[in-house]
């Protein structure tokens, strides 16, 4: 019965008329399900079959509006149907439904050619918003905790709800340009500022130079912020567990900036990141829930 309810729908959003073994679905289902006065057994199963797909597809559409705009209806829905058939929900919550979508696109880029690369960036960006919305947080790093520490050995961590992305497509501008309430988890996004409206709604997402985006939250509002390449390298090194001194060196490994300029930049980034609550004192050990 589970297989019958979750199998893909036939054209016209009907239950498939052919059973798994090639015989008639109507006959197979009739062995299990009673008819009613008005509905045959397969009609009754079809109600659940449709509800399953409508509910899950709607959930993906809400979580990935940018992807939907990029691909258009003709490619978005078949992609989602293929994804759900290959990766059925393994979580009690629909919140996790899209957690494997990026990997699925990476495995099967042909389904959405020529948009596969842009789609992957968009999916990562939109998934990062879900993580930022309700991911765990840890006590923020304070100046007092930093005082007197040795940068050579000091390890910092980054908030678990924060995602650092490197993209080749301006996904932040694209999503903001859509001006879709469902693109963000909060009703009024402070990230909708004076961003460029010229990107337009939907359509192609042009590849460009690498950009580094942090998706995070502050006071339970979602934000995203572009970082300079050096700042991104620093943040990534901290996230990956490198001591502070090593992380700073990695950030400017290929830089021609003078030491004083590097120090000034690091100070300004740290001031901002601590104000934003990005940094934690130690590597998080989350309570197993």
């Amino acid at each position, binding site marked *: 019965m*589970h297989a019958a309810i979750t199998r893909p729908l036939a054209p016209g959003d009907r239950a498939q008329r052919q059973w798994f073994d090639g015989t008639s679905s109507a006959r197979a289902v009739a*062995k*299990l399900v009673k008819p*009613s006065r008005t509905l045959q057994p397969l009609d009754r199963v079809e109600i659940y079959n449709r509800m399953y797909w409508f509910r899950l597809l709607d959930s993906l559409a809400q979580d990935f509006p940018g992807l939907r705009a990029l691909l258009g209806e003709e490619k978005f829905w078949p992609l989602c149907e293929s994804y759900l058939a290959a990766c059925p929900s393994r979580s009690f919550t629909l919140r996790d439904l899209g957690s494997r979508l990026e990997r699925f696109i990476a495995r099967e880029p042909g389904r959405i050619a020529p948009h596969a690369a842009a789609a992957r960036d968009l999916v990562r960006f939109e998934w990062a918003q879900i993580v930022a*919305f309700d*991911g765990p*947080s840890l006590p923020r790093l304070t100046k007092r905790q930093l005082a007197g520490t040795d940068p050579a050995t000091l390890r910092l961590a980054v908030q678990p709800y924060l995602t650092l992305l490197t993209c080749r497509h301006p996904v932040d501008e694209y999503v903001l340009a859509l001006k879709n309430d469902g693109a963000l988890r909060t009703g009024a996004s402070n990230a909708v500022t004076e961003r460029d409206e010229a990107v337009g709604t939907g359509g192609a997402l042009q590849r460009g130079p690498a950009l580094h985006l942090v998706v995070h939250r502050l006071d*339970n509002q979602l934000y995203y912020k572009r970082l300079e390449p050096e700042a991104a390298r620093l943040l990534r090194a901290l996230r990956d567990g490198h001591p502070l001194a090593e992380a700073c060196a990695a950030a400017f490994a290929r830089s021609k900036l003078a030491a004083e300029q590097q120090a000034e930049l690091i100070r300004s980034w740290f001031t901002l990141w601590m104000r934003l609550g990005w940094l934690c004192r130690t590597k998080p050990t989350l309570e197993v829930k």
Partner: protein
Amino acid sequence: MPANRHNGHTEYGVGLGLRVPHYRHILANKPTCAWFEIISENFMVDGGRPLEVLDAILEQYQVVQHGVSLYFGSADKPDRAHLRRLKNLVKRTKTPWLSDHLCWGSVDGTYTHDLLPMPYTMEAAKRTAAKIRQVRDFLEVPICVENVSSYMEFHASEMTEWEFLNEVVERADCGILLDVNNIYVSSRNHGFDPMDYVNAIPHHRVGQMHIAGHTKFDKYILDTHDHPVLDPVWKLYAHATRLCGVTATLLEWDDKIPSFDEVHNEALKANAYIADARAAHNAQN
């Protein structure tokens, strides 16, 4: 009976489902509302806005948890990690009881995110009751099991749905969340008299009731929770209230959600039937 061990001996009155479109109004205006029912799964998260909202609501209102993923009727054993998350939430909300559905919906770790009807067999009743006991023992809070609306029945069933519900709740020694809209929807879809259902259940086990709207199609009725409560459901609610006593009542409105005031006013219509039930009870005594 109104306050009983299945609802933590509370008398909560008429409440509403807590829904996202109403958050701003509730937090800004703090309207009077006897209690809110939350969907547990929406708040079984690790941080962020959902818990911020929940904590703000808990400061002002009574909250009861209602779940959609315990799947008492599924063959899978209870997931202990899931139960631990749920118990954390129970401690946070101090819910006096917790409800979930008499249904299945997961197989081998995959989820349908639906509430699927079961074949009403003695074996299924025993297994379901055992699972309810396990969950209740872990969560340490009274459990009320809700009857679902359904669109199919199985040849394998050995009894009616209400006989099955009775078997389960007696064996589990748990409460009932009596959803009178679900009874009505199922009665139209399966051709039974909804009054038979309400008459047959153990009334002393009813800890809570649900009312809701539904949608009529040509050949079936769908439990859509996107309309006001229809007259036949009110009639059934009135009958159930007279039999069970005045019981915590919750209006479910989950789609095409109008303003808070409109939903609340719809819910408060239940008070007329509650008043009738009280009058009838007083007249008897």
